C-alpha cells in the first residue's frame, strides 16, 4: 500500500516536472515577439428603421453600406478597423459604440506606422460605451541592422467629435507609443523617443464623461544604459460644452494643453494636464471647492483606539474636485475624487490615536483648495472601574487602549509573588487589568504618572491569563534623583490570548493619577 502511494507521488512529481518544462518553454515564447494589434471582426449587418448596425469590419466594409460614411443612426457593436494614415469623417444623426464595439486599427508585424484619425460629426448624440483606440504603436528593442523592428514610438491619431450631447462611459485613447531601446552589441544601449500624442476634441451642448477616460498622453521615451529617449510631442484636449460638462468617477489625461469650457460643471474626478485654459460660466476658475465635515462635529470627545467614520461633503462649481486630503487622529491620506459618491466622501479611520484634530483639504482640478477643520475635539480614554483589586476581578480593557486610573498605597489589592530580577517577594498589587490580543506580535505596555509626590514609585507587571505566572516587569526606581523617570514600560512578544496587567503602588504617599497604554510599537 505504501509502495503504491510512493509510486503515485513519484509519478505526480514527474508530471510536475513535465509541466515546469512546458511552462518554461511557453514563457520564452509567450513573453517575446509581439505583433498585437487586435484581430478584425469581419461581419457587418444592417437593420432597418434608419439604424445601421455595424458588427465589425474594415472601413471599406462600412463604406459599402454608405460610400460617403453618412448614416441616420449608426451603432457599432464590433471593431471598426481603420486603415493606416486615414483621416475619415463619419456623419450621423446619432452614433453609439456599444460596450462590445470599438474603433481602432491594426498593423502587421513589421508595420510601424502612425495611428489614423477619426472625426465624428453628429447632429444629435454620440454615446461611447466601448472604445476609440487610436494610440500609437510602441517601439521595440532593436539591434543595429534590424530590418523589421522599429525603436521609435509611433504617433497617436486625432479624435474629433461634435454633437448635441456626448456621453463617454468607455474610453478614448490616442496616446503616443512608448519609445523602445536601440541595442548596440558591446555598447550601452540607448532609448528612442516616444511618439506624439494625438489631439482630442469634444464639442457639444452637454458632455458627460462619467465613468469614462480620455488618455491623450505623449509617448514616453525608451530606456537605455547610454541614455533615455525623449518623450513625444504633447497633444491637446478640448472639452467644449456650451451648457454642462459632467464627469463623475472618470478621468482625463493630457500631457499638453487642456481647454475646458462649460456654462456649468459637475466634476468629481482627476483632470491631469500640462497647462489648462478653463472658462466656467464665463470666468476662469479661481474659486476653491466647498468642503464641510459633517461628522464628527466640533467639540466631540472621540474614544482612543476606536474606529471613526468621517463624513465629508464636497462640491466645486469650477473645474471640479480632484482630491481630498484627510488628516487627524493619526490618519493622513489623500483620496481621489472618484471616491466621492453624490458629493459625499466617507472615510473610516480604523483606530483613532492622537492628535485629537481633524482637517480636510479639498483641491480642485485647477489647484484651488479649501480646508475644513473641527475645533474643540478631545480624546476620550477608558476610565478605571473599581473594584479591580485581583486577577480574577481584573477590569477588562480593549487592545489597543489607554486607561486612566488612580492608585494609592492603602488601596485594596491582592498579595502576589513578584519577581524583581534575582529577588522575589510577596507584595500587594492594587490595580488589575486584563486584555486580549489576536495575533503573535510585539506589544508595548506603558505606565505614565506624574510623580506628584517626590517619593512616588509605582511598578508594572505582566502576567498570564491566570495571573499566577509573571511574564514581564518594570520596576524603575522612579524617585531616585539620578533617574527621576515616572514611566514604567514592558515590551512583550505575546501569542494570541488573554493577559493580565498588575500595577503596584510601591511607594505612593497620596493618591496618584496614572495612564496605562496598551498598544503596538
Amino acid at each position, binding site marked *: 500500500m505504501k509502495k503504491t502511494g510512493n509510486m503515485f507521488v513519484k509519478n505526480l512529481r514527474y508530471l510536475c516536472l513535465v509541466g515546469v518544462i512546458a511552462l518554461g518553454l511557453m514563457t520564452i515564447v509567450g513573453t517575446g*515577439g509581439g505583433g498585437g494589434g487586435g484581430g478584425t471582426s469581419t461581419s457587418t449587418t444592417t437593420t432597418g428603421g434608419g439604424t445601421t448596425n455595424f458588427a465589425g469590419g474594415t472601413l471599406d466594409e462600412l463604406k459599402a453600406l454608405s460610400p460617403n460614411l453618412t448614416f441616420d443612426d449608426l451603432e457599432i457593436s464590433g471593431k471598426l478597423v481603420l486603415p493606416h494614415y486615414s483621416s475619415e469623417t463619419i456623419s450621423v444623426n446619432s452614433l453609439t459604440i456599444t460596450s462590445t464595439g470599438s474603433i481602432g486599427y491594426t498593423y502587421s*508585424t513589421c508595420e510601424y506606422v502612425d495611428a489614423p484619425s477619426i472625426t465624428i460629426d453628429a447632429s444629435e448624440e454620440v454615446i461611447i460605451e466601448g472604445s476609440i483606440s487610436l494610440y500609437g504603436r*510602441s517601439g521595440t528593442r532593436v539591434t543595429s541592422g534590424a530590418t523589421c523592428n522599429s525603436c521609435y514610438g509611433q504617433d497617436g491619431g486625432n479624435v474629433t467629435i461634435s454633437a448635441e450631447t456626448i456621453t463617454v462611459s468607455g474610453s478614448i485613447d490616442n496616446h503616443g507609443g512608448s519609445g523602445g531601446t536601440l541595442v548596440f552589441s558591446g555598447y550601452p544601449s540607448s532609448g528612442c523617443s516616444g511618439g506624439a500624442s494625438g489631439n482630442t476634441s469634444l464639442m457639444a451642448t452637454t458632455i458627460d464623461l462619467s465613468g469614462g477616460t480620455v488618455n491623450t498622453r505623449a509617448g514616453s521615451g525608451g530606456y537605455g544604459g547610454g541614455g533615455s529617449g525623449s518623450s513625444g510631442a504633447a497633444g491637446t484636449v478640448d472639452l467644449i460644452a456650451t451648457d454642462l460638462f459632467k464627469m463623475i468617477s472618470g478621468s482625463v489625461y493630457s500631457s499638453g494643453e487642456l481647454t475646458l469650457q462649460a456654462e456649468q460643471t459637475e466634476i468629481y474626478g482627476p483632470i491631469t494636464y500640462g497647462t489648462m485654459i478653463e472658462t466656467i460660466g464665463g470666468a476662469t476658475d479661481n474659486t476653491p471647492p466647498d468642503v464641510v465635515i459633517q461628522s464628527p462635529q466640533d467639540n466631540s470627545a472621540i474614544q482612543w483606539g476606536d474606529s471613526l467614520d468621517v463624513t465629508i461633503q464636497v462640491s466645486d462649481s469650477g473645474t471640479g474636485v480632484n482630491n481630498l486630503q484627510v488628516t487627524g487622529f493619526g490618519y493622513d491620506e489623500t483620496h481621489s475624487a472618484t471616491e466621492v459618491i453624490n458629493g459625499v466622501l466617507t472615510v473610516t479611520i480604523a483606530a483613532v490615536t492622537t492628535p485629537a484634530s481633524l482637517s480636510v483639504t479639498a483641491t480642485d482640478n485647477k489647484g484651488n483648495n479649501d480646508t475644513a477643520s473641527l475645533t474643540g475635539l478631545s480624546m476620550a480614554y477608558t476610565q478605571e472601574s473599581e473594584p479591580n483589586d485581583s486577577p480574577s476581578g481584573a477590569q477588562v480593557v480593549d487592545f489597543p487602549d489607554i486607561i486612566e486610573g488612580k492608585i494609592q498605597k492603602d488601596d485594596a489589592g491582592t498579595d502576589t509573588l513578584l519577581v524583581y530580577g534575582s529577588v522575589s517577594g510577596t507584595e500587594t498589587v492594587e490595580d488589575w487589568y486584563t486584555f486580549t490580543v489576536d495575533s503573535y506580535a510585539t506589544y508595548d505596555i506603558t505606565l505614565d504618572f506624574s510623580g506628584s509626590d517626590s517619593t512616588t514609585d509605582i511598578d508594572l507587571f505582566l502576567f498570564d491569563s491566570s495571573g499566577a505566572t509573571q511574564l514581564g516587569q518594570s520596576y524603575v526606581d522612579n524617585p531616585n534623583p539620578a533617574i527621576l523617570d515616572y514611566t514604567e514600560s514592558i515590551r512583550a512578544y505575546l501569542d494570541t490570548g488573554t493577559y493580565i496587567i498588575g500595577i503596584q503602588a510601591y511607594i505612593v504617599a497620596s493618591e496618584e493619577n496614572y495612564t496605562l497604554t496598551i498598544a503596538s510599537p
Partner: protein
Amino acid sequence: MQRINKTQILIGTIGLLFGSLVYLIDRPPDQTYFVYSSPINISLSNTIPSLFASIGNSLPAFLHVFSFIVITAGLIFCNKKGYLIICLSWFLVDSAFEVGQKFTTWSTSILPNWFAGIPFLENTENYFQKGTFDLLDLAAIAFGTVIAYFVLITTNKSKRKETI
C-alpha cells in the same frame, strides 16, 4: 523517499513572478504575447511609471533561466552532478531561443505549420521574427545559470544540515 526542496521551488517562483513584472509594468502591452492576448487588460505599462529602467532589457533573460533551473532542481532533488545537468540544459534551451532570433529565416523555416492557432505556440514565429538577438541577453542567461547553480548548492547544504 526523496522529498521536494520547497525552498528552491519558492525561490524560483518568486523569481518568476518578479520577472513577469517587467512585462506587466515596463513593456508596452502590444509587445508581449501573454499580455495582449489576455482577455482582460493586465498591463500596467501606461498606468504606473517604469520600474526597471534599462536593466529591464536583460532582466527577464536572467530571471527566466534562473527561476526554471531552481524550480526544476527543487522538484528533482539531486546531487551536484544533477544540478550541473539541469543548469546546462536550461542554459542551452534559453540560449538556443536567443540565438534563434539572430537566424530568423532558419528558425522560422523549421517551425511546423500546426503551431498556428494553438495558444502560445502560435506566437513562436513572431518570437523569432520580431525578437531581437542581443549579446547582453546571452550574458544574462549565462549569469543567471551561474547564480542559480550557487543558489542550488547553498539551499541544498542547508537542507542537509536540517536533516542531520
